[in-house]
């Protein structure tokens, strides 16, 4: 079930939230948790009910193992064997559903021959709930958590807003919030704030992300079909995809936090204006924050982190990013995307190392005005991230090559048609000389649309900033300097009638513009 569907907005969400609050009021906290867990299973099994069995089995096995690891009935070596066995089982299930065909294809590629693809359908959200439960098991083993009761555990894993596309919530963040007799009493403040955040997310998804998707898809489809794209088409296509995934993920994160807040559950922030980052390290602190946290705590640090010398550290970074790439999808393009980001991070850390030791670089940098320095850093980061999106979005490595060749200007610097009409033949003479216009997308309008959205990304406050002091997303830190203090102050949310009307109208407009063939959130496929 999609958040941007009529059935979810008009039936599932109101019934599940109202039912939760009513259950809590009449029968108490435990029954409310049972209600929400049940509706979450319904949400999960909406399209393929069989996967409910997989989810339930996964919860049952991991909960039982967690209890055994948390208490002292087993000896230390036995606990270690159990931990290894259960984590292997989790990874095995994930590997089978997500990577089996990729593995077979790779074997066929390496050794030649044909393979018959397994008929495997990837269960929704398997990457998310597997990682969540692995973290729980590791912490049980390390004595960092005691196994809670089953209903709380099941709620933590299945809570529907975060079940399919994250954030990868940590048991320490959720389970303590489920305790307390008045924990889920109806709170008008939380409901109003949650409704607003949810509405902002819906608006971002329907109005911005889907529009950008419509601009990006034809270009990538053309590249996949082997068609030639011009320089401007390729850049607009890629930039549009960068904005699509940005707003898609941002929208989903907002909607998740909003739904949680409606029932008094604060979920962790997962997205914090990542395109405003001035280096790639900062980007990964703002993009998919909970995945970065998981990979840091449960992979990078166990590998030795940055305590094992420069070479090993960079090696660890690369391993983490390649696995992070593969976590997003089983394919060479995802692997390449992860490796490219690994390389970016290594360069970033290397640059920092050199920069802090070079008096020449420091003296040059300090001579530059702060704004110019920032602009250079931001520009480099943004372009690097945008180029990496080509690997993430393209159908295959051939399409990646086609797109990158066009972005490098190898197919000519065709200007948008509208710009050509504006500037006449001089531009044609300078930039083109006989390169075909593929007419894949209406470039003039697309350029305008993309630039408008880039303006929003950089100059408008994000959801956390709009919600101001009412924002209680876990881990939220104000990370951005105010550019237009006056405007931003006006945009900060207040429980006023004007905001109520504007927020309601945003939801109305989003609902009216929902497509009948709703586009799913990009992160649903992971």
């Amino acid at each position, binding site marked *: 079930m999609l958040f941007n569907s009529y059935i979810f907005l008009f039936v599932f969400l109101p019934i599940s939230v109202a039912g939760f609050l009513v259950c809590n009021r009449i029968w108490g906290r435990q029954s409310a948790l049972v209600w929400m867990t049940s509706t979450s299973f319904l949400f999960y099994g909406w399209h393929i009910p069989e996967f409910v069995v997989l989810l339930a089995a996964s919860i049952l096995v991991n909960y039982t193992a967690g209890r055994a690891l948390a208490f002292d009935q087993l000896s230390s070596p036995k606990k270690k064997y159990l931990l290894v066995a259960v984590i292997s089982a989790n990874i095995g299930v994930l590997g089978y559903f997500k990577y089996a065909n990729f593995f077979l294809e790779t074997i066929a590629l390496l050794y030649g021959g044909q393979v018959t693809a397994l008929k495997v359908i990837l269960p929704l959200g398997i990457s998310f709930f597997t990682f969540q439960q692995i973290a729980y098991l590791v912490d049980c083993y390390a004595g960092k958590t005691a196994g809670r009761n089953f209903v709380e555990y099941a709620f933590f894993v299945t809570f529907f807003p975060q079940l399919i596309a994250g954030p990868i919530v940590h048991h320490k963040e959720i389970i303590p919030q489920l305790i307390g007799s008045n924990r889920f009493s109806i*709170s*008008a*403040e939380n*409901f*109003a704030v949650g*409704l607003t955040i949810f509405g902002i997310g819906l608006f971002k998804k329907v109005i911005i992300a889907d529009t950008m998707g419509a601009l990006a898809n034809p270009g990538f*489809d*053309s590249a996949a*079909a082997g*068609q030639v794209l011009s320089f401007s088409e390729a850049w607009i296509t890629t930039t549009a995809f960068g904005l699509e995934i940005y707003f898609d993920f941002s929208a989903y994160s907002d909607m998740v936090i909003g739904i949680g807040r409606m029932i008094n559950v604060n979920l962790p922030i997962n997205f914090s204006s990542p395109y405003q980052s001035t280096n790639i390290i900062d980007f990964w602190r703002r993009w998919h924050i909970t995945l970065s946290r998981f990979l840091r705590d449960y992979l990078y640090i166990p590998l030795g982190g940055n305590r094992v010398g420069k070479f090993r550290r960079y090696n660890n970074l690369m391993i983490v990013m390649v696995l992070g790439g593969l976590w997003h999808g089983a394919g060479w393009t995802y692997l390449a995307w992860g490796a490219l980001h690994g390389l970016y991070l290594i360069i970033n850390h290397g640059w920092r190392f050199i920069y802090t030791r070079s008096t020449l670089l420091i003296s040059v940098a300090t001579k530059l005005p702060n704004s110019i320095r920032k602009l250079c850093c931001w520009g480099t980061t943004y372009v690097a991230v945008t180029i990496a999106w080509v690997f993430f979005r393209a159908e295959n490595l051939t399409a990646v090559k086609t797109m990158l060749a066009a972005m490098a200007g190898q197919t000519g610097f065709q200007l948008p048609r509208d710009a050509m009409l504006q500037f006449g033949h001089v531009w044609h003479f300078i930039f083109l000389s006989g390169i075909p*216009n593929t*007419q894949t997308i209406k470039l003039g309008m697309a350029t305008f649309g993309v630039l408008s959205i880039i303006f929003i990304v950089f100059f408008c406050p994000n959801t956390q900033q709009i919600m101001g002091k009412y924002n209680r997303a876990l881990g939220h830190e104000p990370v951005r300097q105010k550019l237009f203090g006056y405007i931003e102050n006006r945009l900060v949310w*207040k*429980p*006023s*009638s004007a*905001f*109520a*009307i504007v*927020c*309601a*109208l945003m*939801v*109305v407009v989003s*609902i*009216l*513009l929902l*497509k*009948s*063939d709703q586009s799913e959130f990009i992160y649903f496929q992971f």
Partner: protein
Amino acid sequence: MNLSTSSFRKWVCIWGVTFTAFVGLAGATTEWLIRTKVEPNDIFLKHIEFFRTSTQQNVAIGDSIVALGFTGQKGYSNIAYPSETIEIAEQKLRIYFSSRKMQHVILQADIHQFCKHRVNRAAKSRTATYENLRWVRMFSPVHRTQWLLYWRTYFGKGYFKPKFAFQPDGAQTLSGTINGAEDNPSSVCDPIKNIYQSRIAKSYLAIANFVKAKGGQLCLVRFPKSHERRKLIRARAGYKAVEIWFQKFAREQKVKFIDLLDLVENDDLFNDHDHLNHRGALTVSPKIKDACSS
């Protein structure tokens, strides 16, 4: 400002009232617009209605070339619709002849059917579109994605005017002329290279098999083009290969392939370089019918 709980309750109430009022208002007015302004002028709905109620056993099908170019022939229905691919034509034929007997099927055999943009276009099933309209019209598949467009048109123009004249036999005709306009080379597309394994080729074969199975006769027709367009087409690489494919396909499937590309010498019979106007359609259609049924 009072930030007490009651203030938040008030906020939620205002939100609820605004939401309900605007969703209700938007829904009611959109329904009104669809029922009173859109549907009476919607060619697509007329086409659907015609498609559903036509009783003819002879049909012509394809995209706008056929929709505009074949009319006025007794015993024939024109069930073509602009921009529809051969894959959609296949689906439509299956739906149409699921409850009717079949005699002659005139199927468009123009080379642009194999152009990249056509091949790449998703062959989404239009079956849902041909389902009955729902009681609440705005939730019908045919309308659901168009709400904003309807309002934009209504506020922009103030009225809905059909683009084509809908004829009693299902044809959609235009009465314009080329008026000596220059042909635009970029509007001639390039066919794909891999014709034989393409989805379009498979659809042509599926149609041929379907027509055979229903006891009908299939007739592939390449419709006429203007002088300028013919020159452009012939200068284009890749067109000969598709022409050969059609000839080979017709031979193998034992169906007729009527090539009328050069039939019309008088450019006044064209609405534009690709499409016949109403007069042109009335002139050409009897020749198509005769060639196919001889």
